[in-house]
Structure formats: structure tokens, C-alpha cells
């Protein structure tokens, strides 16, 4: 597995020291050799960005250099010092998600927590999670309301269905990509290399869950709202013209934390965990609840289940 090459968080103290050292050199050289140009970037960074290899073929050093550039770019564009990591997948872990739809009350706290956590463009109003409001007794997505705005939720006679990337085990979006800019990591998360995507949007046409979103413009994020804890394959600031999607909060979950949507849910409807761990909560749900998956007939094998009490 070539994607274990990164060191990031797993690398420990030495790594952090080295990173800081490199960062010092990088800024020093940049200041000495070239004036910041190219949209706040130095010529060297622009050059290196252009010829950057795809994530899975970069060496450890090349990834390190890429992370440094991402941090410099974020500083230039958003005036924020971010920490971009490359935490590798944990061995023996494949993530799965389940939502108790009888508990979900449509508060959309998951949606808003996700926007903040993952540095989604505020002006573009991109959201990885959509909560659909439907009439009780109706489960036709075409009758669902995506933009319900009542005074208070839940509304009598309605039920709610949160939808996000299902992290399919046979993902049609990955097959669609003409440049292999999107793939499934060993821990089952379908990720995008934002620096490799050419923006053809074929994956968006291929996704049955409308989980993929495009940066039609440069995402705008207020400096004070920027989440500085970022991951190369996750919530780092994205360039314009590329596709992105839910990544199960890769920067959190790979360190054993919950995804932001689960943490934010006030009703406890969301269950996230390791599908390979027989003692995990997600495995309990799968073993003891009547679960179903959306559009299971399409054969994409979502790792995302729904159940009710």
C-alpha cells in the first residue's frame, strides 16, 4: 500500500522538528530569491505545485514538501497558520457509519458542524451532509424537502433522513475518474487528491448519492473560523476547480476521534466505528438492529447504514 508513506502525526517529535526546520528554510529561500507573486505564492511554490505528483506516487519527502506548501498557501490566502498533516490509516480499521432515523429530529447540527470542521466554502454554501425532510409514511426522495426552514424542528408528521457520502466499498466515482485522483484508502475512506483532480466532474455524474461537490469558485473561509487542524486528504483548504466530498473527518477519525457530525448530533442518532472490531458500537448495530442502506440495488456496497428503534 503506497499510501502509508506519509509520516504526519504518526512520525512523532523528530518529525515535527524537521518540519519546522524545513519551514524555516522554505520561507528564508522564498524571501531571498523571489518576491511573493503568483497570487501570494512564490515562483518556486507555483512551479513545485504545478509539477507535484499525485499523492500515491509521492515519496515521504515530496509529501512533506507538499504539506509545507499547503501551509504557506493557506497563510498567503487566508492569513491563518494551519497545520496540515498526513496521518496514515490505522491497521485493522475499516470505518462504517450508521444513523438511527427514528432519533434524528432534523436539527442539522451535523451539517453546520461539518461545514466548520471541514473548512467548507462559506460563500459557496457547500455542505457535505443533506438532511431530507419527508412526510411520515413516505420514503420517496423525490418528495423530500432539502431546504426545510420551519421555526422549530421536528415538524409534526415529518421524518428526517441525513444523507452524505456513503463511502461505498465499490465506489462508482473512483471508477469514473480518468486520472485516478480519487480512490479508497485502506481504512475504507474514499478520498480525493485536490492537487491531482482535473475538475472534469465525471465522478459527480457517477455518484448515486449526490455526495460530490465542486469548487465553482475559490472557497471563502473567514480567518477566525478556519479549522487549523487539517489533513492532506481531508479538510485542508481546497483550490478552485476541483471536486471534494465527505471523508469521515479523516483528520480526526484516524487519531481515534469521532467525526464532527457525530459529536455535534444532539440526539445521539449517529454511530461511527470500526467495522473490523467485533466489539464496536457499529458492529452492535449491524448485529442487533434492522438496518438498510440507500439504493442498495445499485450494488455500490455503501458502508453507511440506517436503522430505527
Amino acid at each position: 500500500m503506497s499510501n502509508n508513506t506519509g509520516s504526519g502525526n504518526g512520525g512523532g517529535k523528530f518529525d515535527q522538528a524537521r518540519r519546522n526546520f524545513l519551514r524555516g528554510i522554505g520561507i528564508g529561500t522564498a524571501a531571498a530569491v523571489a518576491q511573493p507573486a503568483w497570487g501570494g505564492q512564490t515562483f518556486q511554490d507555483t512551479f513545485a505545485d504545478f509539477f507535484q505528483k499525485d499523492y500515491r506516487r509521492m515519496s515521504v519527502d515530496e509529501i512533506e514538501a507538499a504539506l509545507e506548501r499547503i501551509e504557506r498557501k493557506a497563510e498567503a490566502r487566508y492569513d491563518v497558520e494551519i497545520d496540515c498533516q498526513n496521518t496514515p490509516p490505522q491497521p485493522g480499521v475499516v470505518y462504517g457509519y450508521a444513523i438511527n432515523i427514528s432519533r434524528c429530529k432534523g436539527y442539522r447540527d451535523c451539517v453546520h458542524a461539518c461545514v466548520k470542521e471541514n473548512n467548507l466554502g462559506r460563500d459557496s454554501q457547500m455542505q457535505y451532509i443533506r438532511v431530507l425532510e419527508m412526510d411520515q409514511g413516505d420514503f420517496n426522495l423525490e418528495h423530500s424537502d432539502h431546504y426545510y426552514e420551519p421555526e422549530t424542528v421536528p415538524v409534526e408528521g415529518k421524518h428526517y433522513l441525513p444523507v452524505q457520502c456513503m463511502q461505498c466499498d465499490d465506489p462508482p466515482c473512483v471508477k469514473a475518474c480518468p486520472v485516478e485522483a480519487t480512490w479508497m484508502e485502506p481504512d475504507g475512506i474514499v478520498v480525493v487528491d485536490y492537487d491531482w483532480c482535473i475538475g472534469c466532474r465525471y465522478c459527480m455524474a457517477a455518484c448515486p448519492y449526490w455526495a460530490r461537490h465542486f469548487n465553482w469558485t475559490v472557497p471563502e473561509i473567514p480567518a477566525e473560523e478556519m479549522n487549523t487542524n487539517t489533513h492532506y486528504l481531508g479538510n485542508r483548504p481546497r483550490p478552485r476547480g476541483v471536486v471534494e466530498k465527505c471523508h469521515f473527518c479523516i483528520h480526526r477519525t484516524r487519531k481515534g476521534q469521532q467525526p464532527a457530525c457525530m459529536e455535534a448530533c444532539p440526539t445521539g442518532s449517529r454511530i461511527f466505528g470500526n467495522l473490523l472490531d467485533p466489539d464496536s458500537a457499529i458492529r452492535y448495530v449491524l448485529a442487533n438492529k434492522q438496518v438498510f442502506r440507500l439504493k442498495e440495488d445499485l450494488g455500490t456496497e455503501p458502508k453507511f447504514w440506517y436503522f430505527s428503534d
Partner: protein
Amino acid sequence: MVVIRFIFDSVREMFRGPREYWMWLLALSLVVLFGAWRYSEQITEGLVVTGMSDQVSWGFYISNFAFLVGIAAAAVLLVIPAYIFDRKDVKDVVLVGEGMAVAAVTMAILFVIVDLGRPDRLWHMIPGIGRFHWPVSLLAWDVLVLSVYFLLNLAIPFYVLYSRYRGKEPNFRLYFPFVVIAMFWAISIHTVTAFLFSANPARPFWHTALLGPRFIASAFASGPALIIITLQIIRKLTSYHVSQTVIDLLALIMTTALQISLFFVGAELFTDFYNEGAHAASIHYLFFGLGGFSSLKAWIWFALALNLTALVILMIHPLRQRTVMLNIACVMTFIGIWIEKGMGLVIPGFVPTPLGEIFEYAPTSVELSVAAGIWAFGILVFTLVAKAVIAIEQGKLSCPPEEQRYTL
């Protein structure tokens, strides 16, 4: 080097002509420049200047792409009678058809490039230095078949013309294998383009085995329509001989193809509407509107009316044989298929979204301008190619004997 002289002479021929010819080139160039200027706007601002959205993530650009691949494939309808059935009259104009294929593929590729969010990363597709997701990704397949088709349609006419230029008959045995490959390849480009769409169970509107056959049938109607008009223009403007029998043959092919194409449309409508399920939502949106939204409705009925009227004209022999009526039918078919297989095919695939949201799309002035620029560029390419082809085919342009050659 005679090859260099050949290229040099051909290019010189392309830019030689009467005042009207120059005005024509100038007019096309101006539209190209206008399109390029509007495209620069898209480059600076991003694709946000288009009407596309996360809901309808492909629009006018990809619609034109799908249509133009069909036009490119239709050149095969001249190639087969010319080379397989050895029809002399068709052979006279086959190079014009191949020139049209080159222009159409150029436009198709340009339409994909302007649709990209990151055209600066196009090199990511190049095998070796990039990652080319072949044979898994259908888009990789499309890039492959279109590139090869482009090269085939450059190489074969290049060889034939180069031989003529030197006053020799081209060696049939040498280029025939490539002609056979080009024939199958023509079918493949449009089939792969259809599969690009039909490969997606996420989009029920496209996910039908009939899409490939529909693409071929409609291409074999719209392609001959364009060739018939073009050949008549060439006949009118130049002294080049275009036999009426070629036009009659193309008109007959077009009639049959349009019949089959409309039959396929009918089959699709029946299957979707007899027992209307959730899969019919998109086609319902296209023909009747959905949830109060119906921006494509007028267009698709207009297209259907055009195609049906054209078919009636074509099926009545005395009408089809009258040049004026034939031309009307050709224009109707061309526009009808352009709507049906362009916006009429691409947009409903996105409406409603897989989560049932209805969000409409309309191209912005940037998209329309860029598209106009690309069309003008294609017509410009075709004009220049046809100019050189005709001069060489007529024997007006040939390699001068050794002693009369000017130094390059």
C-alpha cells in the same frame, strides 16, 4: 524534402483566395477571438461564471461535445461507400468528409477542455508522467478513442493527398488497413461516448442499453445532413465536381437513420411511460416538466417536431429529390438532433438529482460565447482543410518539377 514542400504549399493554398474568402476567414477568426476572450473570463473567475451547479454539473459544453462526436463519426458514411464499395463518385468527396471529422473531433475535444475546472492539469492524463485510468474509466476510453480517431483522419488524407501532390496514385494496399480500422473506430468513438453516459446507474435517464444504438442512429442522421449541405456549398462556391449521386446516397442513408432514431425515441418513451416509475422522472421533466419546472419542454417538442417533419419530407421521394426540400430537411434534422442529443440528453440526466432535488440549468452568456468560438474555430479548421484538399484533388496544387522549384 518534398514533405515540407507539400505542407508549405498546402498552408499557402489555405490562405490564398478571393476577397470574399478572406472576409469569411476574418469573420470566423473574430468569433474565435471573442470566444477566447470570454473564456479568459472563465479562467480568471472560475466555472462559477457558467450556469452549472453541483446539481447540474454538466451543461452546454458537454452537450455540444456529445453531439459533435456524432458528427465526427458520420464521416464513416462516406468512407464505407468510397473504399469498400469502391464508388468513384463518393471517393471524390471522401477527403472532404474526413476533413469534417477532423474539425468535429477538434471541436469535441475543445468542448471537454473548456469544461475542465483545471485545464492546467491536463497533463495528469498523459500515461507515464500522469495517471491514465484506462481501461477502467470511460472518460479515459473516450480520450483514447477520440485521439486515435483524430490521428487516423489526419494520417489517411495526408497520405492520399501527399501522393496526389507528387503526381502518384496512393498505394491502396498500404492505406486500406488503416481505412478499415478507421471505419470501426468511427463506430467506437460514438459508442464509447454513449457508454460514458449509460455507464451510470446513478442516472436512470442515461442508464439504458438503448443509448449506444440511439447515439449511432442519430449521428447517422445529423452527420449526413451536415455533409449534404456542405457539399452543396462547395459545389456552388468552387469548380470542384460533386456528383448528385453522392447527395442522393447520403439523403437515403439519412432517411433510414432518422427513421431508426425516431423509432428508438418512441421505444424509450413507451418503456418509461407505460408503467411510469421513479426511473421516468427525468424523461418526465424533459417532455412535460416536473414540480413546476419545465425549461427543456419547449425545446424537446420543437426538436421532435423538426425531426418528424424532416422525416416526412425525406420519406416522400418527389420531395426528397427536390434540392430545396432536401436542404430544409437537412437543416431541420441537424438542429433537431442537436437539441435532442445535446441539451436534451445531458441536462435531464441531472434533473432531478439522485437525492430528488429539482434544480434547473440554463447556459450563461459566457458558455454561449465560448461555444460560438469553438464552433467558429471548427468551421475555420474545416474551411482551411477543405481549401487545400480541393486544390490538390483538382490537380491545381502539385509538386513542381525539380527545375521549377522555388527554394524554401
